[in-house]
């Protein structure tokens, strides 16, 4: 049970939960149904990130590869063309295309917005299962834009280092996809809200293909994330997640 790492992963990571309610499903069963949809062992994705601040926009495009523990993200838009990030376990490396040099990124940078977006490096490249990081409970059921959803709350598990202490999730009761996620600070303050805008059925699974993250501490800003294409369980060449391949 592994979760896609890479920019597509942020979609996956933000929609975990566990709980039980009147439908008869337990929290574990809800999570398993979600995992069946959103959790992948290996993947290759082409994605686009649109950063919006009032009337200014910036688009970043990327290709990402991921397996159980590792991720490689290669930016392809003109401004960042050739910039690469490699995550191996808890280590993050960056390749600077002009100098053609690789630098190990300090751990505290993992909580920074990646390339100026609302998604942190941690959001993007975190490979732990959310169920390993949070304890979830069911809050109830709600309709979200006409879709019946389970509403779940996750609290950071004791001793776990997470970006957000608490998260609240709206999970589709029929398709078992997360439609909305609220992310809270340790103080209880709402930091970010992420909403899925489009899902797609790929094979037997439903998968979130477009999402919007809003930073609630800033006005009129958001980051849109769009998966242009995604391939599940592709054959990833040996040596993909190495410094040799990063250069």
């Amino acid at each position, binding site marked *: 049970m592994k979760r896609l790492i890479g920019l597509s992963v942020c979609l996956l990571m933000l929609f975990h939960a566990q709980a039980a309610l009147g439908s008869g499903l337990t929290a574990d069963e809800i999570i398993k149904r979600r995992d069946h949809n959103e959790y992948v062992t290996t993947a290759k994705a082409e994605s686009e990130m649109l950063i919006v601040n009032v009337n200014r926009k910036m688009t970043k495009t990327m290709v990402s590869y991921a397996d159980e523990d590792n991720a490689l993200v290669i930016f392809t838009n003109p401004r960042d063309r050739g910039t690469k990030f490699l995550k191996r376990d808890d280590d993050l490396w960056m390749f600077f295309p002009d100098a053609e040099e690789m630098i190990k990124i300090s751990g505290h940078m993992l909580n920074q*917005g990646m390339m100026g977006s609302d998604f942190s490096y941690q959001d993007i490249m975190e490979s732990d299962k959310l169920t390993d990081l949070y304890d979830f409970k069911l809050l109830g059921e709600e309709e979200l834009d006409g879709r019946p959803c389970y509403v779940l709350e996750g609290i950071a598990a004791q001793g776990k280092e997470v970006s957000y202490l608490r998260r609240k999730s709206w999970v589709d009761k029929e398709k078992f996809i997360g439609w909305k996620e609220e992310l809270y600070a340790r103080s209880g303050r709402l930091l970010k809200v992420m909403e899925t805008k489009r899902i797609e059925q790929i094979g037997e699974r439903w998968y979130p293909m477009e999402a919007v993250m809003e930073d609630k501490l800033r006005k009129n800003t958001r980051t849109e994330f769009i998966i242009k294409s995604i391939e599940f369980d592709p054959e990833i060449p040996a040596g993909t997640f190495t410094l040799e391949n990063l250069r």
Partner: protein
Amino acid sequence: MDKLLILALVLGLALSPPVQALEIGGQAALLWSGSLQDNDFDSELTESLDLEIFFPRVNNLELRYGFLLTRPLQGLLADKEGSYFAKKLYLKHRSKLFHLTVGRQPVSWSFGSLINPVDFTLGAETLDTEQQSKYTDAVEVYIPVNWNSSLALVLSFPDGFIDEPDRMKWGIRGRTGMGGYDVTLNYVHEAGDAYPLIPRQRLGLALKGDVGSLGVYGAFGLYFDQDVDSSRSYLAGVDYSYNLDYDAKITMQLEYLGIEPDSMEASMRTGLLKMDSSDDRLDLLIGRITYPIDYFASLSLVTMVSLDDGSVIVGPIYQNTLPGNIDLNVGATAFLGRDGALFAPDPLRAIVSIDLSYPF
């Protein structure tokens, strides 16, 4: 006529649509800079075009070509002297055992410090900025050992590809991960006449990792040669992020650099480094702090302090990505210190610059 041909070629390449996997990208920039020397202020306007052609990789072969044109328009229109500098023109062969790179290429042994005293090419460098001295005619063999360990051998030709051992520079760098730290050990042998005032050989050790929520790094350099005293350099640095209201993160970097110039000639000690005979080490404290104003703008302050005489270089920098994807950089550098101090405003007092650039 040559200039017209070059410009036509460049514009033609830049404006033509990509064909198959061939791509062209780069950056057009306009820089206004001014300097205050004594009481005279001089300024100039410079345009530049930085282009790189991305050729498709063919099997294990990769061709890279990138160059910088300075003042191409003024060269054509105002008869001012422009320049062409090939930053990259190399062929790389990749195999499972090694990578071989031949031609003009960047050789950078950076590891995240503001100043790297044990780089292949010495000189202050902030990450992600360009230094033409990093681009050199060279042959590099890169041998991967495991996912984060490697050996790199570089033979460079500072005067171009000339078959004279005394005009060649060479170095070897080993890199590995140890206990979560990135560790590198390197040796460099300078060309005969490259730096006549400093030793031709040096050993360097650098490491970078984390201690709790602090990023930490350090380096040690040993400089030596025949018939001169050896000298050392010491670098220790930390970087840290401070979360302002969960939203804006201030990033800070502070490092100490100590240089013993024992082996340098007296003229360099007293002239360039402004040291007297009692000084046995140059002590510098370098810092950078960056505040993100929003997604597109940031404010930074870079300072360098001479701990020996209290003189200071102060450099505020404002960066903003304007509508239309144009980058604006406004920077200033001021020199502060008493007469005779390392960073004394003598005669250069301050530099200001405004840079507009457009990546494409």
